[in-house]
């Protein structure tokens, strides 16, 4: 038993860490640190820096630009990016559309779409959820009817993250509504967001952010060549993606960074000349989260070790990492709000702007609000428990 990375792995980590230190633009790091809004340009700028370095698509095969890393290296890279406070890489193209195309796409589709994804030239979003479908994905209603050499799409998607930035959307649509099994008759379509008939409507979340959208399709004509895999086999595609190797579901690197911030912020909060970190009540809460995070990191590495050993994808274990990881993320934002105390209430300056400190403290409560979504999205934690219950426990 050896909980440490090998010498080679440590060298790799140091290389990544050193490179991130030198190449992560300070303004982007600061924005991340202040929980500021990231513009499309911010996201793409970081994407392109990584693309230039050849590190933007760690899971891709080398022929399409992947760096040829093993699972541990990929995990390390993702954790280091999280810990460094690098902007997230928007996953819809790199980690969702691309793997689907690599597995199910035609050569023509690969050639057409993969380079644009790799170089950050084409921004993708994901059209899965629909009003009323929630975690019950197979209940989707958006229809695509084949008419000659194209499909005509009608329906609505919801919770479409960054659709307002997107050039393209990949969608699950119903091409056969006669099938008795709901999972059948679903197809996987690639749709250009500039096609007439598409309307994007913002959904403002309670932290005031515009991140998700509703997307409406009204007689949208999609060339038949944009069908991925066979008509009616979209569920197979979607399932492949859901089971796709996810390595850092626990987001340990990000939480480690937030824990460091929490401790240093709380240490500066004084009461009667005593730091909040010397308050047993507060400190114990921080300690329990820290211990939980230590455990999660090891659990994540254990699963990774098993994955490397067996060559099998992690399966329902990922659900566990998602549950614990999101609980930790939420606990950290909540403790930050508790740390700032009565100063947590201000939100938006009515004239002029907050100074830097006030802007930071004003970002804590919205962040707490925003982080509530982590236990809801990407398969709510209730769904994750259902998965473990069924897959791991056989209940």
């Amino acid at each position, binding site marked *: 038993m050896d909980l440490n990375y090998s010498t080679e792995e440590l060298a790799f980590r140091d290389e990544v860490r050193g490179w991130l230190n030198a190449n992560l633009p300070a303004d982007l790091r600061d924005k991340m640190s202040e929980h500021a809004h990231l513009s499309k340009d911010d996201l793409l700028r970081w994407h392109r820096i990584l693309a230039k370095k050849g590190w933007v698509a760690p899971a891709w095969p080398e022929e399409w630009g992947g760096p040829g890393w093993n699972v541990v290296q990929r995990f390390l890279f993702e954790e280091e990016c999280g810990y460094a406070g690098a902007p997230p890489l928007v996953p819809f193209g790199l980690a969702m559309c691309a793997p689907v195309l690599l597995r199910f796409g035609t050569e023509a589709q690969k050639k057409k779409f993969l380079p644009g994804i790799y170089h950050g030239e084409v921004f993708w979003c994901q059209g899965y959820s629909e009003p009323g479908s929630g975690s019950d994905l197979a209940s989707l209603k958006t229809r695509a009817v084949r008419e000659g050499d194209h499909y005509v799409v009608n329906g609505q998607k919801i919770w479409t993250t960054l659709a307002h930035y997107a050039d393209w959307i990949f969608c699950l649509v119903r091409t056969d509504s006669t099938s008795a099994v709901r999972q059948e008759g679903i197809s996987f379509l690639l749709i250009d967001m500039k096609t007439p008939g598409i309307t994007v409507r913002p959904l403002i979340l*309670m932290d005031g952010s515009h991140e998700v959208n509703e997307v409406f399709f009204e007689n949208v004509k999609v060339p038949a060549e944009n069908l991925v895999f066979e008509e009616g086999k979209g569920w197979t595609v979607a399932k492949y993606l859901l089971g796709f190797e996810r390595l850092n579901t626990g987001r340990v690197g990000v939480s480690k960074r937030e824990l460091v911030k929490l401790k240093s912020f709380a240490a500066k909060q004084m009461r009667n000349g005593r730091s909040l970190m010397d308050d047993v009540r507060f400190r114990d809460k921080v300690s329990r989260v820290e211990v939980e995070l230590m455990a999660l990191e090891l659990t994540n590495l254990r699963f990774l070790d098993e994955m490397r050993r067996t060559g099998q994808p992690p399966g329902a274990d990922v659900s566990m990492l998602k549950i614990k990881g999101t609980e930790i993320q939420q606990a950290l934002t909540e403790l930050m709000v508790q740390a700032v105390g*009565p100063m947590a209430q201000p939100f938006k300056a009515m004239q002029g702007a907050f100074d830097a400190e006030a802007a930071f403290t004003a970002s804590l409560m919205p962040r707490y609000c925003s982080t509530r979504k982590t*236990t809801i999205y990407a398969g709510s934690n209730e769904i994750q428990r259902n998965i473990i219950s069924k897959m791991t426990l056989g209940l």
Partner: protein
Amino acid sequence: MDFEYNEEQQLLADSVKRFIEKDYSFEARKKIVASDAGASEAVWSTLAEMGLLALPLPTAHGGFGGGAVDLMGVMDALGAGLLVEPYLPTVMAARAVMLAGNAAQQAALLPAVAEGKKKLAFAQTEAHARYDLDQVQLQAESSGAGWTLNGEKRVVIGAPLADQLIVSARTAQGISLFIVDANAAGVHMQTYRTVDELRAADVQFKGVKLPADALLGQSGAALPIIEAVVDFATALICAEAIGAMRSANDATLEYIKTRKQFGQPIGAFQALQHRMVDMVISWEQARSMACLACVKVDTETNPNERQRLVSAAKIRIADAARHVSQESIQLHGGMGMTEEMKVSHTFRRLSMIVQQFGDADFHLERFASAA
């Protein structure tokens, strides 16, 4: 033993509830929040007409002499409606005037408050005081017959809307309270919207000159007054939380009954049923403690015992507000996260109530120390 409101209390609670349902819908509130002032003069007039502003004031100055129990049903209804007008700040400041002011000061302010002609704010919190009421750095220097104020107050709810501020300051004698015109020379506000859609400000006092009669009560004798005012307000936000939590629970119950997934309402899933039950139990337990807090701030004459029981209530309300608010969002799924659903606003107000006037940790300390 009697846990019901008396007839007058019930009538008033019902009328406020009707007002919220009829004139203060979530849509109406949205417009108010989006307005420049962030609060509605028309609503304020209605509050005055319904007698809500006169209710907690002394009968000698146009009030009805009501206590926290009389306000309980009102706060409950306002909590459910998420009222953004500065009712609580005005009540707090008026209570300070009532407890510490002389007849002239009371006559100058309270009748106008009762009639809805004046709004007040209670300026107490400072940058590094957290929830400690005795941490007052703002200086009031005796200058000639009057006083000069220098310093800063933070997160003064309702300050941008107030005509007068009641400000705690440190004199040579100790902690004192002053009446300050909101537009007095040297008063500078950085105004903002709070997360729960209230208007508030950080208020700087730079050489603000006050007349002698701006001092409320004796110089240096204000701490017990401030403690009484904040305990009173804490009891009121406990009652407000009961209304807000009921609103969140009702919305969640309604949602899980109607929202379908996998072919049935999600409320048919036992895991969600049990969690919904726990939310209701949290609420019932919190409701009992809100009753206790309101009764005790009205009747308990020993300040130490009053503080102990108000802290007990706030511990339970803080825990319940946290539990109910978080679960209501989780059970709503994505919809609960959106600005357009009322429950996301109830979540924010409840999240702030968790901490307002002291979080559970603060009150655990006070509860144990007062025992």
